[in-house]
């Protein structure tokens, strides 16, 4: 049943762009990109239990790295490698405060980092062009296949999502994934069983951030124009919402959470005039109040009965 449902979703994802208008394809591609970013945060927060309000900043780092390099004529795969390594290294460094503080204190540390990145993107005009942003970001051509059109670029992003999902699936089912879960559930006990909790904490931040960077590299050619406000705290909070609404620590949580965050407001927009954001906010509040483990947690509870 579960496999059949997943197969149906996959077929729908492959067929959908052929039935949608350009704006619909754009939204679906945005869902793919945000799902990737949320997968990264789900690794850091959902599996390893380390709160981060900085995931949007890593999407920004990835987006600016990609935009700066590809507008200078660098191929997109180079931008992927450099943005991933850069986000990995910065994410690793951001993990150090988590060795000393936890929970809301850690949230504030990561929030400060997100603000710092936003200010850098806005103020360091020599590099980022500040509030004027970077325009004309090209879409890639791979081995003669052009991903410039909306459908082709959607499939390109979908392929990257498949790769990121497979790698994350592999990771969370490995002994490293088990150690991440141990870190989330009881760090003191994990430490006493030989789990190097310091190293796993840093890795959780580094891997989650690197995936955020990958999402950013895709975001830049999707919108083809980036400016700092796209990566302010709102994006980090939105990504956090995606993880929580989908189901923190569930593999499919980010897919569902990103769908709620990206697609639901657009769907509610029809027929509700200006009230759609109020409906959306109420729906999210009700869900969080009655099922803090998210939609997948709710589904698990329902099917267990």
């Amino acid at each position, binding site marked *: 049943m579960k496999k059949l449902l997943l197969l149906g979703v996959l077929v729908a994802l492959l067929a959908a762009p052929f039935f949608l208008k350009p704006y619909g394809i754009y939204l679906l591609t945005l869902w793919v990109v945000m799902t990737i970013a949320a997968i990264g945060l789900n690794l850091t927060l959902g599996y390893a239990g380390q709160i981060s309000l900085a995931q949007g900043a890593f999407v920004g780092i990835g987006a600016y790295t990609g935009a700066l390099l590809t507008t200078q004529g660098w191929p997109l795969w180079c931008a992927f490698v450099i943005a991933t390594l850069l986000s990995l290294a910065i994410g690793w460094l951001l993990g150090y405060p988590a060795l000393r503080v936890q929970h809301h204190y850690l949230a504030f540390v990561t929030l400060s980092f997100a603000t710092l990145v936003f200010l850098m993107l806005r103020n360091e005009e020599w590099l980022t062009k500040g509030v004027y942003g970077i325009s004309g970001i090209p879409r890639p051509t791979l081995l003669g296949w052009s991903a410039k059109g909306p459908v082709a670029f959607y499939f390109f992003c979908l392929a990257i999502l498949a790769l990121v999902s497979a790698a994350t699936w592999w*990771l969370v*089912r*490995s*002994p*490293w994934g*088990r*150690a991440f*879960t*141990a870190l989330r*559930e*009881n760090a*003191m*006990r*994990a*430490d*006493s*069983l*030989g*789990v*190097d*909790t*310091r*190293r796993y904490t840093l890795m959780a931040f580094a891997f989650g951030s690197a995936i955020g960077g990958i999402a950013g590299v895709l975001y830049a050619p999707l919108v083809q124009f980036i400016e700092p406000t796209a990566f302010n705290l709102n994006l980090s909070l939105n990504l956090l919402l995606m993880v929580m609404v989908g189901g923190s620590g569930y593999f499919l949580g980010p897919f569902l959470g990103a769908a709620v965050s990206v697609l639901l407001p657009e769907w509610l927009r029809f027929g509700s005039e200006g009230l759609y954001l109020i409906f959306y906010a109420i729906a999210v509040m009700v869900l969080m109040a009655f099922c803090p483990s998210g939609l997948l947690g709710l589904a698990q509870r329902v099917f267990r009965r």
Partner: protein
Amino acid sequence: MNPVLEVRGLAKAFGGISAVNGVSFDVHEGEILGLIGPNGSGKSTLFNCILGQLAPSAGQVRIDGRAITGMRPCQLNRLGVGRTFQLLQVFPQLTVRENLILAGQEHQASMWSRLVGRRDAGLGAAADRMIEFFRLSALAAEKAAALSYGQQKLLDVAMAFMAGPRLVLLDEPAGGVNPTMLAGLRERLREINAAQRATFVVIEHNMEFVMSLCTRVLVLDQGCIIAEGTPEQVRGNPAVIEAYLGH
């Protein structure tokens, strides 16, 4: 022959309160040492100082002659030191089997090979043996959260033995465990002690459990050792009676 565990002049103060006050003792291979004392006598603080959970204010700890003071708990575990905590410390969202596999995995080869090498590397079979040994077979696939308190306590102890430790410090293993399960736990500990020459230090308030399991007993009161000897010697010691009964 070096003792497995040497503690010399260990002290820990919290502000003006001296929780452990210059404690020294040795534990030899294969020994089961009981550590008893009234509530607040410093037993758990002593454990936490030995095991790197707390930084001692003074003193030295050696394992097999090697100074380990200041080492982190995960480093100590890799040197063959296992422990349990006073309060339950299992991973509630993992199954019994996963809890045990986790308890042994960090002793398997390098960190990198744990990611790219064989997922199980024999740990599944080792976990199954441990499950059978601790009579938890019917619960192997259950999440730890679904187990009763006593069953979780057994799992907690079993986890401490997954990596085949040389020295295990057990903090109140009998707390909240029913008499039947407790007899089983005592038997399991005796079997491991006899088969592997594993060395134990046991903090416990259940005197019957301590007296029937331990080969030697240390009594702690107000952070100091006030008596030491066989269970029989300690039972009749006036200082111990004074510390427990206050007269």
